C-alpha cells in the first residue's frame, strides 16, 4: 500500500451495521438470538443517568445478543456533535462514518490517518458467555466475515479477529486460519477465558500461540476489555459517570504489568519466541515497570535454572508492543522502553480520540523527537508488526 500521511493507528474501533449479523447468520436457526438492534427501555442502572459519552444504555435503541435485553448502541462520541458530547440513542442518529467502511475512509482522510487496526464496538466480540458453542461459532464467523469485508473496501483497514473459545482446539485453529485468509491481521483476546476452561496462559492454549507464530499475526490485549474483571478493587458506586470513567480508565496503565509477567513466568514467551503481543489503550510507561521488575525477580530467583532462559527485558524488546497517544513522560523514556516497540493509536471513534486533530496531538507529544524516531513511532513499527509493505508518498512533516 501507499501511505499518504505517514500515520497508522494501532488501536481504532470498527462500527457494526445493523444487518452485519442478521445477513450472515441463519434466521431459521437462531431467530431473535442473532445480534441485532432493538428498541428497549433503559437498563435499570442507567435509568437515572445523565446522557453521557461513555456508551451506556439510557433508553432508545441498543444491540441485543442471544435474546438478552438491549445494551449499548454505538460508541462513537468522536463523530457526534460537541458540547455536550453524547452517544446516539436511535439507530438513525448513528453517523455513517462509524459503520460504513467506504464513508469512514473520508473520516480517516480528514484526520490524516493512513490505516487503522480495528478493535470492536457494540455488540462486542465475545459470544461465549451464553455457553452455547454453536451460537458462539456462528456469531464469531459473522463477526470475522463482517470485518473481513472491510478489507475488500480498502487495504487501510486492518481488522482483528475474535475466536470461538467454546470449540475444541482444531475448530479454534480452523477459524483462526479462515479469518486470516479473510483479511484479519491479528487476534483480539478476551480478558479472561470462559469460566470452566483453563486460564489464558495455561499450556492448553499453546496451539493458538503456535498458529499465531506460524502465521506471524500478533495477539492483542485491550486495556479496558475485561482484563480488570475479577482483579480490580470493586468500583465505588458514589462516583458520577465521568468520575468513574476517569478513575477506572487510568488503571489500565498496569494491564501490561499484569499480563506480561504472566506470559513470561508461565513460559509462553520462551516456548513461542516469535509470538508478538500488542497492548492497546494501556499506554507505554507500564513496560518500564515490567522490565525492571521482571529482570529483578528473574535474577533474584535464578529462574534460568527453571528453564526460563531469556532475560525478561530481552523478551519484552523481542515480543511486546505498546501504544501511545497523550503520554509526554512515556515518550521521553522511549529508548528505555524500546523505540521499536511503540506505536501510535487514535482510539477513533471513542472519547479518547483527538479526531479530527490527531496530528496536532501527535506533534505536541513528539515535540523534539528526532525524525527517525518519529517515523518508527508513527508508522514504521506498525508496518513491521502487522507485516505490511508500504511506500510513503511524502515524508512525515517534522
Amino acid at each position, binding site marked *: 500500500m501507499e501511505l499518504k500521511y505517514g500515520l497508522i493507528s494501532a488501536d481504532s474501533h470498527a462500527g457494526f451495521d445493523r444487518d452485519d449479523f442478521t445477513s450472515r447468520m441463519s434466521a431459521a436457526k437462531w431467530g431473535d438470538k442473532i445480534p441485532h438492534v432493538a428498541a428497549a427501555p433503559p437498563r435499570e442502572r442507567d435509568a437515572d443517568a445523565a446522557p453521557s459519552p461513555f456508551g451506556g444504555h439510557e433508553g432508545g435503541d441498543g444491540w441485543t445478543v442471544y435474546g438478552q435485553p438491549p445494551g449499548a448502541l454505538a460508541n462513537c462520541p468522536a463523530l457526534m456533535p460537541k458540547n455536550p458530547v453524547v452517544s446516539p440513542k436511535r439507530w438513525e442518529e448513528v453517523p455513517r462514518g462509524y459503520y460504513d467502511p467506504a464513508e469512514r475512509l473520508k473520516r480517516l482522510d480528514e484526520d490524516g490517518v493512513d490505516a487503522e487496526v480495528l478493535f470492536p464496538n457494540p455488540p462486542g466480540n465475545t459470544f461465549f458467555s451464553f455457553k452455547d458453542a454453536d451460537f458462539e461459532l456462528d456469531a464469531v464467523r459473522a463477526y470475522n466475515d463482517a470485518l473481513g469485508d472491510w478489507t475488500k473496501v480498502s487495504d487501510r483497514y486492518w481488522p482483528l479477529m475474535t475466536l470461538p473459545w467454546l470449540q475444541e482446539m482444531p475448530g479454534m485453529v480452523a477459524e483462526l486460519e479462515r479469518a486470516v485468509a479473510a483479511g484479519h491481521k491479528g487476534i483480539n483476546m478476551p480478558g479472561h477465558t470462559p469460566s470452566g476452561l483453563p486460564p489464558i496462559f495455561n499450556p492448553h492454549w499453546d496451539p493458538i500461540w503456535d498458529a499465531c507464530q506460524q502465521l506471524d499475526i500478533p495477539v492483542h490485549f485491550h486495556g479496558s476489555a475485561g482484563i480488570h474483571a475479577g482483579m480490580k478493587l470493586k468500583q465505588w458506586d458514589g462516583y458520577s459517570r465521568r468520575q468513574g470513567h476517569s478513575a477506572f480508565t487510568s*488503571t489500565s496503565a498496569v494491564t501490561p504489568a499484569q499480563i506480561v509477567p504472566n506470559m513470561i513466568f508461565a513460559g509462553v514467551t520462551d516456548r513461542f519466541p516469535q509470538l508478538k503481543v500488542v497492548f492497546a489503550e494501556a499506554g507505554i510507561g507500564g513496560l518500564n515497570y515490567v522490565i525492571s521488575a521482571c529482570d529483578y525477580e528473574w535474577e533474584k530467583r535464578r529462574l534460568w535454572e527453571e528453564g526460563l532462559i531469556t532475560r525478561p527485558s530481552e523478551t519484552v524488546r523481542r515480543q511486546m508492543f505498546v501504544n501511545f497517544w497523550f503520554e509526554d513522560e512515556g515518550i521521553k523514556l522511549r529508548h528505555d522502553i524500546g523505540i521499536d516497540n511503540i506505536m501510535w493509536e487514535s482510539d477513533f471513534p471513542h472519547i479518547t480520540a483527538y479526531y479530527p486533530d490527531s496530528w496536532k496531538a501527535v506533534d505536541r507529544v513528539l515535540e523534539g523527537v528526532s525524525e527517525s524516531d518519529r517515523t518508527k513511532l508513527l508508522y514504521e513499527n506498525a508496518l513491521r508488526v502487522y507485516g505490511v509493505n508500504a511506500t510513503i508518498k511524502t515524508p512525515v512533516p517534522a
Partner: protein
Amino acid sequence: MYEVISADDHVQEPPDLWTSRLSKTKFGDRIPHLERDTDGAEHWVVDGRVLLDGHVALTGALMPDVTQEPRQWSEVPPAAYVPADRLKAMDEVGVRYSVLFPTVAGPAGEAFGSIADPELELACVQAYNDWLIEEWAGASDRFVPQCIVPVTPAAAADEIRRAVAKGHRGVVYPAVPMELKALPHIAEPEFDPLWATCQELDVPLCLHAGASRSLQYSFPEGLPPRRAEALDAVTKPVSMVYVLNTFLFARILTRYPKLKLVLAESGLSWAMLDLEWSDHQFEHDELPSEGYEFTPLQLFHRQCYLNTWYDPVAPFAHYLGADRILWSTNLPRATSTWPKTQEIIERSFQGASDEVRKQVLWDNAASLYKV
C-alpha cells in the same frame, strides 16, 4: 556506604506471641498458633484458618538459598525475629532505621480482619501491637513500630489512639476491608473516623501491597513455586493502582488534606503513567466541572508516598517528586535487596543527584516518621 532509613521491613512473629498473651480459657484453639503436619512442616492457624499460604515464616532473603522458605520454626533465621540479630543484619547493609510491618498478622495487616468475632480480632491485634512495642521498639530506637488495627472503622480509630499513645508511629491498614468483613466500600464516609484519627495524630496511613490476591491477574494453575513467587512479587506492587486511584478520585484526600498516605511495596515506575493518565483523563472527561479543587497529580504530590527497593529513580523522580519516594530493603522477604542493598542503591540512583538520593534514602522517611 549510603545511610538508609528502610521504610518497609517485616518482623517475623514468634510462635508464642499470641498464645502467651491471649486467654486460653476464653479463646481456646482460635488463638494464632503453630501446627505441625505429619511430614514435619509447620504452619500458622487462627480461628480455624491457615495463614501465610501455609508457610511458617517468610524469610527467604536470610536463608542459605533465597528461593527456599523455612518449613519449620527451627529453620527460621534469628535475624527474622530476634531484634539484636536484626540490627546486625541492618548494619551490614547501611540501614540505620527500619520501619516495621507484620508477617503472620498479614503483610498488609489483613490476617485478622476476617475473624468474625470482634473480641478475638481485637485481642489478636492488641497482642501484636503490645508485643512490637515491648520486644522491638523497647530493644532499640532504630526500630520504627507501626500498629495494626481491627478493620471496622470505629474500632480501628480506638486502637490507633491506644497504640500511638504506646509509641506506634504509623498505621498499617489493609486496603480491602470490604473483602474481609461486611463493610461498606472504603470510599464511603463510614471510614472517616479512621482517616480523621490518622490526620489528627499525624501518623501515616500505610497501605501495603498484597492485601488481596483479587487485585492481581489470576495465575495459571500448576506453576512451579519459584515461578509463581516471582510472578506474585512482580504483579503485587502494581495492584496498588486501584487503591491509589480510589484515594485520588473519591475525594478522601480532599476531605482530609493532612492525611499522609503511604503505599508500601508499591514500586515506582508504573505510577508515573497512572498519574499522567489520571491527570489527562481528568481534563479529557471534564472533571474540573464536577467540583474537584485539585488534579490527581496535585493530590499525590501533596499527600502520597511510594515505596521501592530496586527501581531506577532518576527517570521518574522529576515527575513523581523526589519528596514522594521512600526506599526500603524489604527484609527479610525473598524479594529483599539484602545483602546487596548498597550495590542495588548504587545502580538505582545512577543519573540522580546527591540531593535526590539523600531525600529518597533518608530525608523523606525521617520527616514522615519523625526520626
